[in-house]
């Protein structure tokens, strides 16, 4: 009976929210109505916003030349979706984003763990990190152009620089959070350095790592699009710039909408991964019935 209860709890936790098919007695029925109501409110908000965009332009409050009605933007979007060049651009942007993010995440985790494990490195690197971190990645655009011109490598330089610090800072916070009792337990049972990194340090840091990945993923997209827009490296950003210079205003907005949707999907995806990896963590597991 006790097992059945705990299993039910775990299932709900991995889903991350209460679903109405959950076990009857333990899931509070009260919680479902507000969730549905919230969803309805959210949908109403979006519809209202879209209607406002359409109206502002239709009634001439803002000139249709700069802010075309939504229906025209939607038309342009459909046209874009039928264009092979659009998909190539999308692929280029995603390639820059994914490669840059992967490099930044890997480097951030490795650097963070090494700094945590080697005692003197923390003091030795702290001031350098505090100096390098606030440099805005876009300030490196001239350097990127000098080094790599308008290739993918330029985009990668900017993306990696921006998202690496997001990652490193989170990992550094995370590895500091190791509970001394957990650490002593591990040591008393003869776990060596590597075993302690793997079984104590890494799981402790994981919630921070996940936050870092989520932040880095968002920043990486911003920088990928910025690099394409400013440097002219191939991708959605470059396509936006071309649309703008050729007065294709609805197309430009359509592409902006696509980047927005990308950002949204990335965030939703990162949160889903986070919930799955941290099912055991307080922030995800919620209230526990003993």
């Amino acid at each position, binding site marked *: 009976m*006790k*097992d059945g209860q*705990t*299993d039910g*709890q*775990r299932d709900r936790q991995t889903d991350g929210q209460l679903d109405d098919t959950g076990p009857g007695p333990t899931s509070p029925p009260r919680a479902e109505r507000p969730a549905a109501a919230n969803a309805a409110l959210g949908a109403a908000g979006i519809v209202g916003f879209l209607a406002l965009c359409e109206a502002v332009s239709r009634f001439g409050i803002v000139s249709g030349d700069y802010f075309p009605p939504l229906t025209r933007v939607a038309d342009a979007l459909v046209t874009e979706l039928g264009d092979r060049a659009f998909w190539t651009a999308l692929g280029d942007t995603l390639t820059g984003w994914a490669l840059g993010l992967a490099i930044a995440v890997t480097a951030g985790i490795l650097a963070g763990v090494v700094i945590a494990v080697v005692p003197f490195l923390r003091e030795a690197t702290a001031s350098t990190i505090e100096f390098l971190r606030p440099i805005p990645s876009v300030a490196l655009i001239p350097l990127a152009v000098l080094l790599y011109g308008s290739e993918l490598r330029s985009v990668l330089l900017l993306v990696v620089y921006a998202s690496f610090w997001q990652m490193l800072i989170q990992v550094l916070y995370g590895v500091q959070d190791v*509970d001394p*009792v*957990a650490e*002593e*337990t591990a*040591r*008393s*049972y*003869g*776990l*060596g350095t590597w*075993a302690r990194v793997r*079984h*104590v340090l890494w*799981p402790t840091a*994981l919630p921070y790592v996940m936050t870092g990945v989520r932040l880095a993923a968002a920043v990486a997209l911003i920088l990928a699009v910025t690099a394409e827009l400013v440097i002219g490296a191939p991708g959605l950003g470059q396509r936006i710039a071309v649309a703008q210079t050729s007065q294709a205003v609805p197309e430009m907005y359509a592409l902006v909408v696509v980047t927005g949707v990308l950002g949204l999907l990335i965030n939703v995806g990162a949160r889903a991964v986070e919930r799955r990896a941290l099912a*055991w*963590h307080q922030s995800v*597991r919620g209230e*526990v019935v*003993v």
Partner: protein
Amino acid sequence: MGRSMLDVRGLKKVYEGSGRRVEAVRNLTFTVDAGELVCLVGPSGCGKTTLLKCVAGLLTPTSGEVLLEGRPVSGPPPGMAVVFQEYGRSLFPWMRVGENVELPLRQKPLSKARRRELVADALDSVGLADAAGAYPWQLSGGMQQRVAIARALAYEPDVLLMDEPFAAVDAQTRADLEDLVRGLWRERGITILFVTHDIDEAVYLGERVLVLSASPTVVQEQLTIDLPEERDQLRTRVAPRFAELRTRVYEQVQAAKRGVTAPRL
């Protein structure tokens, strides 16, 4: 007297830091025989935890030495397991109960089948045979401490160190856990060094009680508990001999707080 399992000789621990020098343990010498259950009591803040950490090899003493079966302890020795007071922080919330118990065994050269066997047997001994798949935080406090005890048992230590293990559980759970420890000790013949601030608990559990002085700590008094082997929460605690012994320990602890030696009975 059997052969000595644990020898603590002239142990001294001084914490130095930020201009302050704190002498937590001054000069401790005692022996625990193989298969003995010894309780350490002392006023709060008397350096019990410091002592235990030195014995466990988690802290390096300033001077003196700890011998486990004649060999000096310089780091956590393989034949020793520690049960901490803070079970919630000592168990890893990212591992299920079974994985928590199994983790220390993965550092030993054991086959997978043998590890499973040890885990199942240890969980069974503490009455949690069906909880292996749960996470520690899904269990009550008393059950979590049982898991920590199971983890120590599965490790098959020669010496089990327990640092105020029941200080954070309610009175009824505490009585159950005391009987559990006593039962496991008799069943498995492990040597147990049990640190507590609770005088009744020390007398009820121990074969011998060491009373520590206030900080800087020395051994104030050693008392053999000549209660029958078979102990019972109801009868043992109302036995006249139990009352005498607990009075004696109580006087010593009070004397320790004042820094004098109480007259012998």
